């Protein structure tokens, strides 16, 4: 029971409640750093560390932290993790850090993370909280990656810096520029809606078939 509940918590974040596609949270880092797949992954990893870590702490101490100051505590915790990530990346992979630039500190402001603490971690036992965090962040990663991949492939004719279409492919510069971010995400969301719509249609048909079958 508990087992598959935690599995459930994990899975929901990836598709049904996908933070980006379904909940439209944490858009800013989402769009800002996804002009290449690698940046997207790096950002995702950073967020993962922060979200999972803070969810863990928050839900562990959820009974000790008084309601009145919980938000402040959350923020302090998150900010701490972010600072840690910031310095670690700066020390280990300066190149990536330079690419992501100011957007690592901005993870603090990412609605997704604070949102999860408030909505989930502060209410549920550690195990579930971590699973939920993992699910969410994996969903986030999926979104980041798909966006980053599309933008890099079209915008640079490459994936992870590997040229795909030979040298005289004409890159779609716009994809690397800000408008490309908005447009691509918009179109992806469109497909997401379309898929859901088709799915619902399908389910209805099935239901109808069954009803007629009875």
């Amino acid at each position, binding site marked *: 029971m508990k087992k598959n509940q935690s599995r459930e918590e994990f899975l929901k974040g990836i598709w049904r409640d996908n933070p980006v596609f379904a909940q439209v949270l944490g858009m800013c880092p989402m769009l*800002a750093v996804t002009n290449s797949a690698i940046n997207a992954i790096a950002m995702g990893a950073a967020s993962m560390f922060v979200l999972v870590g803070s969810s863990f702490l928050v839900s562990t101490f959820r009974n000790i932290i008084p309601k009145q100051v919980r938000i402040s505590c959350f*923020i302090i915790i998150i*900010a701490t993790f972010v600072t840690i990530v910031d310095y670690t990346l700066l020390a280990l992979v300066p190149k990536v850090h330079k690419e992501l630039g100011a957007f690592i500190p901005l993870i603090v402001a990412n609605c997704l993370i604070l949102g999860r603490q408030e909505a989930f971690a502060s209410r549920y036992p550690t195990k579930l909280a971590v699973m939920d965090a993992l699910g969410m962040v994996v969903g986030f990663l999926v979104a980041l990656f798909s966006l980053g991949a599309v933008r890099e492939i079209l915008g640079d004719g490459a994936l992870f810096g590997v040229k795909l279409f030979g040298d005289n492919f004409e890159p779609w510069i716009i994809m690397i520029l800000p408008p490309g971010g908005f447009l691509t995400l918009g179109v992806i969301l469109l497909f997401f809606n379309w898929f859901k719509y088709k799915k619902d249609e399908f389910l209805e048909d099935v239901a109808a078939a069954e009803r007629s079958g009875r």
Partner: protein
Amino acid sequence: MDNLLWIFISALLVNNFVLAYFLGLCPFLGVSNSLETSFRLGLATTFVMLVTAVCAWVLNTYILIHAPYLRLICFIVVIASTVQFIEMLIKKLSPALFRAMGIFLPLITTNCAILGLAIFATNRGYGFWEGVVYALGAGIGFTLALTLLAGLREESELSDVPALIKGTAMNLIIAGVLSMAFMGFAGLFSST
């Protein structure tokens, strides 16, 4: 180093916070369904940005040179508390003004546009006035983008937009087109 005019224009149009830096998207996509609200939210944001710029400058010049590692936490805590303090002040002094934009202040204080402003201003080593002008540009730019989007959204209520597209997808595409249009400002006042 950069002249003030360029800082202002750059933050306002060329590198608009929303349309070029993707900052403050949540309010941008969330609140922009009504024109009045958007405009007031924009004003509130501009105001908070000004406060932020000042705070950031004070912190950078007096505290953070000794303890750079506290940057993030300091920014958050100080900005949040200052804004809250001012919020109370406004509530006391001018209820009207409070009703106009006060309600938004809590919503804004931790959003990434504000924090972003502080961090960018720091990274570029802006002085006091540069910081203030930067904040002003960024704030007005945010208001501009928000108001335009809100107007377009209200208009699209009247046109039969396919159901699949209605909602966030459409807003993002509008935003995309807007940021495409804002590319026209690139290089404005930089070569003169």
